[in-house]
């Protein structure tokens, strides 16, 4: 598994891998585009603001202030002239109609001064000049009003007016001079406005140029680098997707944990093994998802093949492999419960077989040694007994070895079946008779069969071995004695052979497992029942290969019935 995962910085999220190169490339491109966008917005904003500023500045200073001021100041001069004309005309004619220009000029001048005050408000130089202009206009008005009043008064007043009009104390001159000066100041104001606008224009152009330069630089950089980066990013993405797809289909549970020990990837096998969906696992702390995470990692570090893990209150045996990389760890877990059981059964078998072989071998060795050393001293009866014992134990050894051989042949698929016409009744009787000879004390082997049983096609040797196994099993587990019955039933289409005992019986949970290889009901020999754990396995396999079935009915404490069914075949 570790070969499938690259040993480089990796960032994984969700079920699909996202490879770091792709992520970094995407992020860089996003940052570059965002920067470009900001710059473009800045350029646009600067351009917009500058345009508005220039427009408003121009409008404010030229349209709304400078030009009206210049016009109004000129108008002031005109109104003064108008006033003067009216007053002089009245002085000459004493006709009030001559005063019309004066009234018009006076009212217009007052309006002009109000407007000028508004426009110069906030502009100190012009404001001061406006105050002077207003005072002088007021003074001139007072002078003219005096003259008009004198003229209206009659001869004396007219004479006084004529005297005074020749010496107007320079009022008209002063106000003309003030208005002219004010025009000059307005011109200066316009010049200052133009200079300010020029500065604004230059500043704006500079800012736009700088921002535009950066924007163009970034755009060029993006144009040159983005396609290659994207190509690489897509390639890495594709690579990641393929790796992810491969991991979706592996039988081992694979999950990826980042440096913060959070699950970043969780394949379907992991979903099945741990019973947790990827949606619930990804992003969660791994210790909250895999309770025995520490044990798995430690076992992998120590090279332990199997780690017991409790899942749903059941013990399972996992074989973990941990591969670390810069961004975290990849953990591959294989459910090795079956393998562990087989391994354990093999170990049990070695122990059991050793015991099973040693017992008869010890007897054979002891008997033979005694005969060799003290044969002459023994009575014929004693020698006969020893020889019988050697013969029986040798036969026992032969059966054990035969079982091992048959088991090996079954494993390799090389078991040879030689079918011929079999007299099943005769075969059952023979097995029963032989069994009686070695039956333990208290165990009686009985035979029950119809008077006539038609022969069937089978491998007599193999069927004999099956029946011997079943009868031996029945005798072994009849620890308190009793009858072991071999019962033959002849059906139309098949022959049934029941081996019935009244022994220990088999717990329901174990009734199927007893046919497994190396499985022994009394594995620790608490009841003193030995065996290789191969008998029932071999028996079922042989019966199956003969085309029949081997079934069991059993009640714990009340005995068991093994039934061999063999079909009649043409």
């Amino acid at each position, binding site marked *: 598994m570790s070969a499938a995962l690259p040993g480089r910085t990796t960032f994984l999220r969700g079920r699909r891998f996202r490879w770091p190169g792709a992520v970094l490339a995407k992020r860089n491109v996003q940052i570059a585009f965002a920067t470009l966008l900001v710059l473009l917005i800045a350029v646009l904003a600067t351009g917009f603001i500058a345009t508005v500023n220039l427009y408003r500045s121009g409008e404010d200073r030229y349209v709304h202030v400078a030009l009206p001021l210049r016009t109004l100041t000129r108008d002031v001069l005109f109104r003064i002239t108008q006033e003067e004309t009216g007053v002089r005309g009245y002085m000459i004619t004493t006709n*009030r109609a001559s*005063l019309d220009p004066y*009234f018009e000029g006076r009212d217009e001048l007052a309006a002009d001064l109000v407007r000028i005050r508004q426009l110069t408000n906030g502009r100190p130089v012009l404001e001061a000049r406006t105050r002077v202009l207003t*005072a002088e206009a*007021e*003074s001139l*008005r*007072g*002078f003219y*009003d*005096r*003259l*008009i*009043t*004198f003229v*209206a*008064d009659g001869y*004396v*007043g007219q004479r*006084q007016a004529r005297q005074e009009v020749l010496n107007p104390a320079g009022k008209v001159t002063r106000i003309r001079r003030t208005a002219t000066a004010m025009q000059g100041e307005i011109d200066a104001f316009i010049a200052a406005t133009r200079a300010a606008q020029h500065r604004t224009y230059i500043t704006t152009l500079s800012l736009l140029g700088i921002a535009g330069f950066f924007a163009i630089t970034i755009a060029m950089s993006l144009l040159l680098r983005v396609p290659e980066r994207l190509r690489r990013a897509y390639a890495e993405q594709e690579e990641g997707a393929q790796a992810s797809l491969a991991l979706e289909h592996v039988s081992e549970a694979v999950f990826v944990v980042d440096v913060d020990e959070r699950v970043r990837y969780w394949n379907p096998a992991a979903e099945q093994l741990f019973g947790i969906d990827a949606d619930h696992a990804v992003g969660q702390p791994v210790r909250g998802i895999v309770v025995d995470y520490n044990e798995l990692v430690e076992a992998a570090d120590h090279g332990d093949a199997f780690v017991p893990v409790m899942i749903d209150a059941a013990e399972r045996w996992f074989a973990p492999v941990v591969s670390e990389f810069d961004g975290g760890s990849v953990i591959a877990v294989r459910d090795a419960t079956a393998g562990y059981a087989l391994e354990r059964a093999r170990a049990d078998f070695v122990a059991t077989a050793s015991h099973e072989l040693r017992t008869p071998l010890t007897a054979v060795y002891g008997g033979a040694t005694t005969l060799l050393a003290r044969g002459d001293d023994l009575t014929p009866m004693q020698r006969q007994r020893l020889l019988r014992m050697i013969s029986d134990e040798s036969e026992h050894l032969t059966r054990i070895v035969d079982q091992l051989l048959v088991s090996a042949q079954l494993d390799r698929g090389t078991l040879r079946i030689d079918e011929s016409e079999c007299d099943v009744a005769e075969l059952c009787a023979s097995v029963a008779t032989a069994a009686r000879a070695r039956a333990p004390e208290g165990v009686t082997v009985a035979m029950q069969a119809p008077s006539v049983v038609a022969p069937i096609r089978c491998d007599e040797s193999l069927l004999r071995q099956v029946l011997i196994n079943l009868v031996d099993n029945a005798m072994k587990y009849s620890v308190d004695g009793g009858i072991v019955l071999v019962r033959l039933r002849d059906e139309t289409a098949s022959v049934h052979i029941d081996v019935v005992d009244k022994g220990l019986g088999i717990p329901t949970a174990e009734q199927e497992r007893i046919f497994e290889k190396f499985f022994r009901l009394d594995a620790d020999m608490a009841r003193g029942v030995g065996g290789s754990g191969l008998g029932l396995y071999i028996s079922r396999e042989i019966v199956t290969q003969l085309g029949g079935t081997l079934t069991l009915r059993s009640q714990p404490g009340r005995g068991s019935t093994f039934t061999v069914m063999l079909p009649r075949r043409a």
Partner: protein
Amino acid sequence: MLAFALGAAAACAIAVSAPATAARERETPGTWCGGTLWRLMTLSDPQRHTVQLQGTPTTIFDISKLQRPPRTPQTRSTTFQRHVWRLRTVIDRYRIASNGEIVLILYSIDSAQYMNAYLPNPNCLGPRARDRTGMIAARKQLTEQCPVVRPLWQLLGISVNVAGVGFWNPTNATRGALTNGAELRPLTNFQIVNGCGIG
């Protein structure tokens, strides 16, 4: 001879004591300030508190349009009399009357109308006179800034802002009088805008 001497002495005494009495009488407000209407002229009448002292803007032309009461009011009975009126105008001529009152002929440049206004003699402003301070200050403004007031009419020709109480004069034959007899009497405020060295 003695009798002549006594008679002459008495006559001298009378001759000497008569101006003294008159002088004493003129130190206290009374009819010498303007006849029977002197209290109205000096804002000392019983209804003086009905006068709105805040000046109401107006013009000589507007005042000339007012309807003269059928009989000259002896009390402050008309709206015109119960307001202080404020206006900008030009003083054509001025003089001081025998009772110490300064008479101003106001001239409207726009309507070419004259109207009289009066600055009362401070001696005519008793403790009961309302806005006495304003009236005295108004008179002082003129007397301090402009040429000395004489009994004869003098040309003045200054622009002023004035405020005064409306008054109906029984006679409109005096120089500068409006035909409806309306006057500003007394003036409570006087401000030179242009003239007499100002402006």
